[in-house]
């Protein structure tokens, strides 16, 4: 890992060769550690790979291989490998392994305790091992160093089906490791009836409680959003009332950020006829009530895949648009905890394929992390003026 490669040279460059194999995925997970080192995880040729940068993405270490035995790794926008750093600097990596059966997958986990040089043999975290869907993992580490994984799980739908009963959607499951990733708890169901193929947003409240935000199936097929605090009460709050009733896969999950002020910031997409688009809302009472949703983005330009990030009273929104020629990441900024917002502005554009935009922070610095096919990996600092 000591060797430094020029950015976008080497194994991760999505050149024609990789397009021919199409095993390279733009879907990249990122995190800054406490020393300001940026860690990236992605997949290529049935391997999960990790590299780091000490100069904000200009140069990267050579990639370390997480799984020595190749396996099919799901990485397609809503599904991306996750990376997180433990309180004792252990590096945790998680991903969804794709199985032969349609839609089927397992939630995989590996850790490195030597600064990312070597990784443990991957383990499967879902304790139901049927060849059914366990996918769309999200990972976070709380203040006590517990590693939380949440994902979408088909086991209850599958059981209902075998009893001849209907079961809408999937379920959200949770597992936690209290020993630095050495082992995971028995899986716990958080909610029945999640939407089937939208990423789950996971953030930590100021008291350390993990909070999740996901597209749920209300009633028969209303694909609006729900929020739950993983505090053992199993209470679910309905966040959005767009009433998007549809038997479809939106492939379009929400985003959640909780700042030091404890305000919950939420962003999502709805395709409800007559009022489709992106929306932002905030909660100042830990998810009991929510502000009137604020629409944002140009719905005639495919405004999509919103991200929200709150750092010290400032809040950023970023999302993707397409104008017929270029894809752009556009952003908005709030200096008052999400009450008022700047006008939207373009942060970056590309004339080719690109990943969803991600927002990530290094202390008080906020960055757009964006993997593009043409320009390679881009890390762009956002400040009060941009956007």
């Amino acid at each position, binding site marked *: 890992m000591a060797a430094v490669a020029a950015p976008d040279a080497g194994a991760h460059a999505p050149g024609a060769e990789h397009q021919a194999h199409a095993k390279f995925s733009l879907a990249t997970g990122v995190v800054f550690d406490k020393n300001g080192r940026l860690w990236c995880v992605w997949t290529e040729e049935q391997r999960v790979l990790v590299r780091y940068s000490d100069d904000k993405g200009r140069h990267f270490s050579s990639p370390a291989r997480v799984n020595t035995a190749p396996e099919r790794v799901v990485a397609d926008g809503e599904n991306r490998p996750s990376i997180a750093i433990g309180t004792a600097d252990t590096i945790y990596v998680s991903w969804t392994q794709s199985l032969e059966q349609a839609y089927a997958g397992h939630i995989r986990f590996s850790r490195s305790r030597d600064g990312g040089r070597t990784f443990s043999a991957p383990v499967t975290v879902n304790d139901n091992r049927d060849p059914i869907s366990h996918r769309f993992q999200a990972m976070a580490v709380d203040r006590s160093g517990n590693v939380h994984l949440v994902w979408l799980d088909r086991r209850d739908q599958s059981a209902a089906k075998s009893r001849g009963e209907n079961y809408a959607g999937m379920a959200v499951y949770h597992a936690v490791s209290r020993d630095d990733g050495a082992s995971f708890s028995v899986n716990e169901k958080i909610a029945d009836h999640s939407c089937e193929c939208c990423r789950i947003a996971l953030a930590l409240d100021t008291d350390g409680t993990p909070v999740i935000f996901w597209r749920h199936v209300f009633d028969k097929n209303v694909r609006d959003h729900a929020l739950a605090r993983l505090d053992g009460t199993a209470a679910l709050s309905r966040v959005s009332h767009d009433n998007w009733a549809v038997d479809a896969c939106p492939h379009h999950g929400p985003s959640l950020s909780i700042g030091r002020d404890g305000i919950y910031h939420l962003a999502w997409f709805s395709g409800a006829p007559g009022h489709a688009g992106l929306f932002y809302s905030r909660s100042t009472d830990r998810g009991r009530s929510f502000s009137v949703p604020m629409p944002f983005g140009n719905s005639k330009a495919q405004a999509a895949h919103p991200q929200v990030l709150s750092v010290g009273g400032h809040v950023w929104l970023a999302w993707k648009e*397409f104008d017929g020629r270029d894809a752009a990441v556009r952003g908005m900024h709030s200096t008052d905890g999400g009450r008022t917002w700047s006008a939207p502005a373009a942060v970056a554009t590309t004339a080719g394929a690109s990943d969803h935009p991600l927002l990530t922070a290094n202390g008080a610095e906020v960055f757009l992390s964006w993997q593009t096919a043409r320009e390679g990996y881009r890390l762009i600092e956002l400040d009060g003026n941009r956007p």
Partner: protein
Amino acid sequence: MTRRALTIVIGLLLASPVPAQDIRAFEPGSLAAIEAAHAGRPFILACWSITCTHCQEEFALFADLRRRYPDLEIVLVSTDSPDESDAIALTLKRYHLESIDSWVFADDFAERLRFEIDRQWQGELPRAYLYGADRTVYGISGRLDARDVTRWFERQRQFTAKDK
């Protein structure tokens, strides 16, 4: 067919577990080609993916519609990639849709292809477009309703019959 030719054909069939279905590359310009190929006739353009749980729920409907209305043209566009053609073909075979006009997104810049089809389509699947003979187009997200599609096509038939 000579015995030798027959042997080769059987050999090919055995060697390849995947049905030999021609899945065409959907690229910028493909939509215009599809529209031109169906000019003056109603057809359904249906977008789907092998990863979409709701998409295959309407394949039985398509198979049934094709049986009942041999003159109803259906064009399938998979938003997967050309390297998933085998999986696409296997899925279609399962629903007896081997002979259906089938395309696959062949451009990583999927936004561009989606924009060409419908600039307000956000990628949710299944997404279908009912193209009337007069080129009135209805875009529908989610699994198609058998009764709605049947009613639409019956009306299209009356319309085109009157036209003739």
